[in-house]
C-alpha cells in the first residue's frame, strides 16, 4: 500500500486574481482565504463540499497577503500590501472590523497570533518585525519594533508552547526572538539558506523548526542547549532535490507530524519522518507528490487542526484545493 494524496475538492476562491493564503480556524469548522482581489472569504462545510459563507471586501486597499485566526477563534487578523493589519471580530456569521493596526512603512507580509492569544506579530517589506499586545478591552499596543533583518521579512511564526517568535526574510536568514525586560530582541540568527526564506513552521512539540526557501530546499533546525536567555539553533537536516522551483510554504501537521510543502512548480508534496532515525539527525522521505496540484504556483498549504490527513492548498490561479492524505503505515 502506498501513501496517497487524493483531491477532494477544487474551487475558484478569488476570481481573476491570486489566492495568497488559506487558514483553518482553531476548531476546523471554517476556512479563511485572502487574495489579490483585496477580499477575505470565509468558507464553511456543507456536506461534502465547502461553500462561501462571508466575503469581507472593504477592509483593505490592496491585496491581502495573509490571514490568521486567534487561538480562541473569535478574531481574524489580515495583513495587507496597503501597509495595514486589520483585526476582525466574529459576530455570529459575520465579521466586523475592530481596529486597524498601522505603523509599517510599506507592505505587511505576515501576521501571526501567539498561542496565549495576548500577542500578535507582524512583519513587512520595511525589514522590521512588530510585536503587539492585546489587553482585556481589545486595545492593541505596539510592544516592540525589531530590525534584525536587512531585507524584506516574509513570514513570522510563534512557537507552539513558549513565548518565542521566528521570522524569515529575503536576506536568506531566519531570526529567533525572545522577550527581555518588556522588549523583544533577536536572540539567534539561523544562516544556511542560499536564497530568500519564504516559510517557517514549528513541529508539534516546538523542538524543531522547518524553513523553506527560494533555493529549493527545506531545512530542519533544532535548538541546541534549550533553556536560558540565549537560544542557539543548528541545521540538522536539509531536503534538497525534491522541489523543482521555489518552495513558498511549509506546514507541519500537529496531529501526524507529516510535513507538507507548497511549490512554485505547481506541486504539493508531503514528507514523512523516519521513526528509526537519530532524533538529532532526522531523516525525511517523500511520501506523496501531486505534480500539477494547481495550474500555477502553489502559495500556501495548511493542515486541518482536528482531522488528520485533511490538507488545503491555494494558488496564483485563485483556486483552493482540498486534499486527503493517507499514510499506508
Amino acid at each position, binding site marked *: 500500500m502506498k501513501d496517497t494524496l487524493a483531491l477532494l475538492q477544487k474551487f475558484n476562491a478569488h476570481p481573476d486574481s491570486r489566492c495568497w493564503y488559506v487558514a483553518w480556524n482553531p476548531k476546523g469548522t471554517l476556512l479563511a482565504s485572502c487574495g489579490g482581489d483585496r477580499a477575505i472569504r470565509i468558507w464553511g462545510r456543507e456536506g461534502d463540499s465547502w461553500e462561501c459563507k462571508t466575503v469581507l471586501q472593504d477592509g483593505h486597499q490592496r491585496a491581502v497577503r495573509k490571514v490568521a485566526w486567534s487561538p480562541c477563534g473569535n478574531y481574524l487578523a489580515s495583513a495587507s500590501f496597503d501597509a495595514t493589519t486589520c483585526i476582525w471580530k466574529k459576530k455570529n456569521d459575520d465579521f466586523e472590523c475592530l481596529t486597524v493596526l*498601522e*505603523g509599517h512603512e510599506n507592505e505587511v507580509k505576515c501576521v501571526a497570533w501567539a498561542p496565549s492569544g495576548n500577542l500578535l506579530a507582524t512583519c513587512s517589506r520595511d525589514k*522590521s518585525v*512588530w510585536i503587539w499586545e492585546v489587553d482585556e478591552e481589545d486595545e492593541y*499596543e*505596539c*510592544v*516592540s*519594533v*525589531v*530590525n534584525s533583518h536587512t531585507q524584506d521579512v516574509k513570514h513570522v511564526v510563534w512557537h507552539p508552547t513558549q513565548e518565542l517568535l521566528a521570522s524569515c526574510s529575503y536576506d536568506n536568514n531566519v531570526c529567533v526572538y525572545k522577550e527581555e525586560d*518588556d*522588549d523583544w530582541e533577536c536572540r539567534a540568527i539561523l544562516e544556511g539558506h542560499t536564497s530568500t526564506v519564504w516559510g517557517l513552521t514549528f513541529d508539534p512539540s516546538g523542538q524543531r523548526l522547518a524553513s523553506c526557501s527560494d533555493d529549493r530546499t527545506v531545512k530542519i533546525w533544532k535548538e541546541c542547549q534549550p533553556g536560558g536567555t540565549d537560544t542557539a539553533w543548528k541545521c540538522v537536516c536539509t531536503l534538497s532535490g525534491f522541489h523543482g522551483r521555489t518552495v513558498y510554504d511549509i506546514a507541519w501537521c500537529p496531529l501526524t507530524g507529516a510535513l507538507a510543502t507548497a511549490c512554485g512548480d505547481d506541486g504539493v508534496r508531503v514528507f514523512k519522518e523516519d521513526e528509526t532515525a537519530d532524533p538529532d539527525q532526522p531523516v525525511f522521505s517523500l511520501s506523496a507528490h501531486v505534480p500539477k496540484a494547481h495550474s500555477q504556483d502553489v502559495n500556501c498549504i495548511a493542515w486541518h487542526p482536528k482531522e488528520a490527513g485533511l490538507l488545503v492548498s491555494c494558488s496564483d490561479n485563485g483556486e483552493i484545493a482540498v486534499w486527503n492524505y493517507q499514510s499506508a503505515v
Partner: protein
Amino acid sequence: MAHKSEDLFDCILMADDRFHVEGYREGFDEGTRQGMIDGRKHGASHGAKLSMEVSFYYGFGITWKCLLQNNTDVKARKRLKVLESLLGLIQKFPHEEPQYEYLQEDMEKVRAKFRQTSVIM
C-alpha cells in the same frame, strides 16, 4: 672636468624622469590636502545629519515626557515607560565617538524605538 660633463648629461637625460617624480609628489601632496578638506566637509555633513536625527528623537521624547508627566492613568504610565526607554537609548549613545563600533546597530535600535513611540502616542 669629466665629472662635470657627466653631471651635465645626467641632468638632461634624467630631466624627464625627475620632473615626472616631482610632479607626482606635488600632485600627491595637493591631493592629500584637498582630500582632507573634502573629507572634513563630508564628515561634518554626515555628522550633522545624524545628530539632527538623534536630536529630533530626543526633543520629541522630552516634549511628550513633559506633557504626560503629571498624567496618572494607566495608558499614560505605559507611554511614559516607552518614552523613558527611548530617551535612555539616546542618552547612552556616544555622541563624541565616530569610530564607535556599534554605531549603526544602536542607531537602528533608536530608530525602531522612535517608530514604536510615534505609533503609541
